[in-house]
Each structure stands twice: as structure tokens, then as C-alpha cells.
């Protein structure tokens, strides 16, 4: 009964829908990254990161592996973002 809802107004508003939205946004973005490409992509990404880390200290999210399948051929795009200070160190 709406009349009694009046007393519930003092209660905290449930914010679980906001939590759901946040979790889903992250999850769906991850799903989309992983989807469509071959199974070995995550492992490839991890190993590439390890190899690069032997030479340069970079964060986990700085290696991006993107797989595009087209008609006849597919492309694998690897993007590695290097920190600024590396270039500065080399220049000096």
C-alpha cells in the first residue's frame, strides 16, 4: 500500500541497479575484446607483455591485441604503448 510507503521514504534507496550497470559495462567490454578472435589471444597478449617487460617496464593494460577477421585474410594488430620517460632517457 502506497500509504505505508511513506514510512519507507526514510530508508536508504537501493543502489544495486547502479552496481549492476557498472559491472556489466566492464564485463561486456571484456567479452567483446575476447570474442571473435582465436582462443590463444589472451595468452599471446600475456606473453607479449612478458617479453616487452624484459626490456621496458610497462603496465598490464599497455599491450593491446586486436584481431580482425576479414574475407580471405585476418589481421592481428598489436599496440604497445611505451612510457614517455623511456624516450626521454634515450634522447639524453
Amino acid at each position: 500500500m502506497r500509504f505505508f510507503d511513506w514510512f519507507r521514504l526514510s530508508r536508504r534507496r537501493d543502489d544495486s541497479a547502479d552496481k549492476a550497470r557498472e559491472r556489466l559495462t566492464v564485463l561486456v567490454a571484456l567479452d567483446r575484446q575476447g570474442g571473435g578472435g582465436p582462443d590463444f589471444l589472451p595468452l599471446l597478449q600475456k606473453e607479449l607483455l612478458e617479453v616487452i617487460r624484459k626490456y621496458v617496464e610497462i603496465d598490464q593494460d599497455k599491450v593491446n591485441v586486436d584481431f580482425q577477421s576479414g574475407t580471405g585474410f585476418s589481421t592481428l594488430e598489436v599496440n604497445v604503448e611505451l612510457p614517455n620517460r623511456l624516450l626521454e632517457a634515450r634522447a639524453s
Partner: protein
Amino acid sequence: MSKVIVVTSGKGGVGKTTSAAAIGTALALRGKKTVIIDFDVGLRNLDLIMGCERRVVFDFINVINDGIRLNQALIKDKRVENLSILPTSQTRDKDALSQEGVEKVIDELRKEFDYIICDSPAGIEKGAYMALYHADEAIVVTNPEVSSVRDSDRILGILSSKSKRAEHGDAPVKTHLLLTRYDLDRVQRGEMLKLDDVLEILAIPVLGVIPQCGSVLQASNLGMPVVLDDKSKAGQAYKDAAARLLGEDIELRFVNPEKRGLVDWLFRRSA
């Protein structure tokens, strides 16, 4: 030009069959020659929702594998002109669906019907692939709930990569969001994902929002598509969705709180 529309979701229990039955019926009520096909081989339920379960003699699988003519398996609805149902088999499994067999049936139906509604099984196994393969458009049925939204996103990925249109490099399957079991009270209390949240995540246009409504269960109890219940809000929302499918520009209903008088407000009266 006939259109093949798959009603799909990934997740089970979100209202695919209810929606396929309701939208198919609504299209037929608008004068479009419509057939609804049950692709859920082994878990035949469309006939039950449509109330023609006792009239099934031959089915989709008999047409594909046993040389039964399509006209022997099609069931004409007794309430709505222009509406037919193609039931599936309750005893066989998804392997009974062959790519060529399904293609042949769809091609034949295209000659006779304006709209071919494919009611997909849940999951992303063979049955679901078969149901979406020939689609020109897809209605992605989603509940405002995390697992359903995630699965819908997965199905959207499959539609854009595994459908016939994708394989042939044709224009992509046109996708529509149908948000079902929408409980406005819970949305307002912050307990349920709202339409805008789901739209933002899935990024496809909305075909309709179906309010949570007791009349849906009632209609299924009776074997009557919910659009035939004039008093049902869900039925009205499905009719709106069908009209949008036909290209009409209709404002969404049941997504904003109704204005209520003081007495209604005090006693929380709702239709």
C-alpha cells in the same frame, strides 16, 4: 518482400516464445501474412503458448526429414486470420535440423508469407544458430538483469559474425532490443536496471519495453497470445512493438510513472 525475423536472447526464460507469439500475432492482426516457427527441437512450446497443441499432427522436422509437405505441417490460427504456426518436434533433438533442410523450408515460406518469425531456443548451440542464420532482422529479448544483458550482447556478436548475411557479406542483420519483464516500481527504487542502462550497454535501438504484468502468465495459462487480451498492458506494449517493426514511430509506453490522483496514490491503485 518477405522478412525473416529471429526472436533470440541467449539466456533462457526471458520471454522469447511469449514475445514471438505476441509479435507474430500482432503482425497478423495488422494484416500481414505471418508464420511463427518453433526452432526449439525437443522442447516444443510455441504450440502450447499459441493454444494449438492438440492440433499438431506433423511438424517442422517431419517436413525437413520425412517428406511431409509444408502445408500438412502448418497450423492456421483459428482466432487470427493471416497467422500460421509451424510447430517443432517434441521427441527429436537439434541434430534433426539440417542447414539445407531449414533453408528449403524458409525459402518456401518466403513465397507465401510477409513475416517469418523464428522462435529461437536458448543457448548458443546448433538450434540457436539455425534459428538466426537466415534472419534479416533480429529481436533480442532481454530482461533488465545482469546475466540476460550479458548473454544478449553475446548473441549480438554471433548475429554479426555467424548469420547468413554476415557470411555472405550482405547488409548486417537489423537488430532490435525488446526489454521484457520491466518493473517500473523496482526501476524507480533503484533495484532494477533501467532502459537507458541497457541501451547504453547493448547499443542497439529499442523496439519495445514490455512491463512486468500478470496478464502474461494468465494468457499462457489459456494458450492465448497476450496481444489478444485488450486489457493487458503487456499486450498493448507488444502491439506497439509490432507497429514499430512495421516502421511506425510510436512513443514508448510504460517506461515512465503514471500520473496518479491522491486517492490512487494513497492506496497504490494500479491497473
